[in-house]
């Protein structure tokens, strides 16, 4: 048994306006939530098993329950930075159903006892920001935001904040610094945002899709929502499919659906005559999977067991017309460009990796360099301030490991093209000093 939840009405004309949204039952979940106690609302979120849709997959209800009690200012921040390559689901949600997000935020703020809220939207989403701004104004006008919402005890301000182009501002603490008007450098954790986040106050941060799901949980009841999907990955998920497929787009699936169905049935599969070479299951930060992994169930746990992750729910499909090294280099360059530069392993590791990969291209490398590349990825992983470094090291490490043969062949061809004589035999020589 399953429902179509977030995208049920998504193509309804005019859904972005308050009138149509209300006509489709909008804001009734908010009314219902305000009839309940904060604790009940929070319990529904806990019962729903909803896991964050932004990348880390942390249980939303639990995160909301971490905020300390007390009368200090508490904050709710919606992460609408959506910069993970391959991800574009939040864009469609915000553009077409901004009130769903706003309603979700008001309910979430009620559950977390927050009194100020912000949407941090990436600066490039100008259209979506304009739409949201209009929707916020309408919602305020209608009494869904502001003082004593719908006559209840709840008061909530909501400010839309436009970013200015930096992937790292999707990382929750980088986002907070950016929202505070600083460079978007991630912060050391602990303290976690739930204790000391925005302006040092307790802060709940969630992704757009996570928050947009909240009204539906209230509508259906947390326990009913939990019946959808698998036990550890409840509910439905928006999946952005892109790359070498015939019909790229956003699709709402029930968690646990086989990846093959998503890629082939929903996104049309690879172009005729092409085969899938590998695919990123959860955005460019997830370790790549192979065609034989296509029958894995698309849910948090199964993908983690397979050595990758569901991440932001963005599948990028790469077919056999594309050299692996091209994708590797694009990837590394992206992370190098987006590294904030605060911590050493990420700043220097991404920089060095790009230099090495470029050398593979120009024929100035030997297969030995692949060992250094792999080892540098190891050196980055787990040693950085935030996980941006890992976000390059994981997929890149997986590509070098899984396609070592192709990389070596590429090196030899490049050397040959560069006139650097006969390519050397691949050797097992240990690199001096490695592992010492």
């Amino acid at each position, binding site marked *: 048994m*399953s*429902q*179509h939840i977030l*995208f049920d009405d*998504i*193509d309804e004309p005019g859904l972005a306006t308050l009138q149509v949204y209300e006509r489709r039952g909008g804001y009734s979940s908010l009314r219902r939530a305000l009839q309940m106690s904060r604790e009940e609302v929070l319990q529904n979120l806990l019962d729903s098993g909803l896991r964050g849709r932004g990348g880390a997959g942390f249980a939303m209800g639990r995160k909301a329950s971490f905020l300390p009690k007390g009368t200090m*200012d508490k904050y709710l921040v919606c992460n609408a930075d*959506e*910069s*993970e*390559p*391959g*991800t*574009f689901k939040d864009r*469609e949600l915000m553009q077409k159903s901004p009130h769903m997000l706003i309603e979700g935020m008001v309910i979430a703020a009620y559950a977390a006892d927050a009194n100020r809220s912000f949407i941090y939207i990436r*600066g*490039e*989403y*100008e*259209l979506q920001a304009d739409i949201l701004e209009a929707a916020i104004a309408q919602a305020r006008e209608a009494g869904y935001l502001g003082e004593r919402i719908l006559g209840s005890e709840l008061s909530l301000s909501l*400010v839309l*904040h436009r*970013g*200015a*182009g*930096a*992937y790292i501002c999707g990382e929750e603490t980088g986002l907070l610094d950016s*929202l505070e*008007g*600083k*460079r*978007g450098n991630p912060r050391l954790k602990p303290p976690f945002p739930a204790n000391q986040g925005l*302006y040092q106050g307790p802060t709940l941060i969630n992704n757009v899709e996570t928050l947009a799901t909240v009204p539906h949980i209230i509508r259906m009841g947390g326990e009913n929502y939990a019946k959808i999907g698998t036990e550890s990955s409840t509910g*439905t998920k928006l999946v*952005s499919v*892109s*790359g*070498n497929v015939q*019909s*790229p*787009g*956003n*699709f*709402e*699936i*029930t968690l646990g*659906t086989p990846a093959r*169905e998503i890629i082939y*049935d*929903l996104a*049309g599969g690879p172009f005729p005559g092409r085969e899938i070479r590998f695919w990123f299951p959860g955005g*460019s930060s997830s370790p790549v999977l192979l065609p034989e992994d296509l029958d894995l169930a698309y849910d948090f746990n199964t993908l983690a067991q397979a050595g990758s992750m569901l991440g932001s729910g*963005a599948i*990028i499909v790469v077919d056999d017309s*594309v050299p692996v090294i091209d*994708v590797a280099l*694009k990837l590394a360059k*992206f992370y190098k460009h*987006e590294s*904030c530069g605060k911590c050493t392993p990420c700043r220097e590791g991404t920089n060095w990796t790009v230099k090495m990969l470029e050398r593979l291209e120009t024929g100035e490398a030997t297969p030995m360099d692949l060992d250094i590349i792999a080892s540098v990825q190891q050196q980055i992983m787990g040693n950085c301030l935030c996980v941006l470094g890992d976000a390059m090291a994981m997929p890149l490490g997986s590509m070098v490991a899984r396609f070592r043969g192709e990389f070596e062949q590429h090196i030899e061809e490049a050397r040959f093209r560069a006139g650097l004589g006969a390519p050397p035999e691949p050797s097992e020589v240990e690199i001096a000093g490695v592992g010492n």
Partner: protein
Amino acid sequence: MSDVARFGHGSRIPGWDDAVDLTKAPAGVPDPATTPVPPELRSEIEAAMAKYPDFRSAAIPALHAAQKLHGWCSPEALEQVACVMRLTPGYLTAVATFYDMFYMEPVGRHRIFVCTNISCSLRGADAVHDAIVDAAAGDPDFNIRSFECLGACDIAPMASIDGEYVGPLELADAERIVEDLRAGRPVLEEKNIRRRRSVDPGARRSATRDEDARA
């Protein structure tokens, strides 16, 4: 010095080779008595500052506003923002240079950001980028950049043109884009993401509903 081989390799980063100008005064918080700020800009920044518990949060909105007015984050623009916000222009330089959408040099007034990240480049974005660069033929009115993922891989390869998302682009669109911009027309109207249903309605199904349909 640039022709000396020693400086010819390695990464070149604008600013790295620059000494300060010792004849300038140190740049503290600009004194309102000597820093004229256009009134519209001042009120826009002050309105932004009022929205947040800490006025500093308005740094990015204020820089957006100043950039809109001046075309780029010129020293003058930064000084004006600094004056209204009671910050140093250095603080704002640190912020502005961190983000890709702020320009520290004058740029053409038409922004063309071509996404050349993985999903778009799998569909030919690099060639599209080059084609647009060729079509604009160095016209200083155009600010053409290859950009990281813009969050619209469903219309890959795509570009953000003066803030409007268009795609999927073909090589042939390059000329049109340049012409539309020069003529002041909406660019590639039929490919604008506003008009486009991102996905054709037939495909808009949940996987399970699909099963239902089959059943």
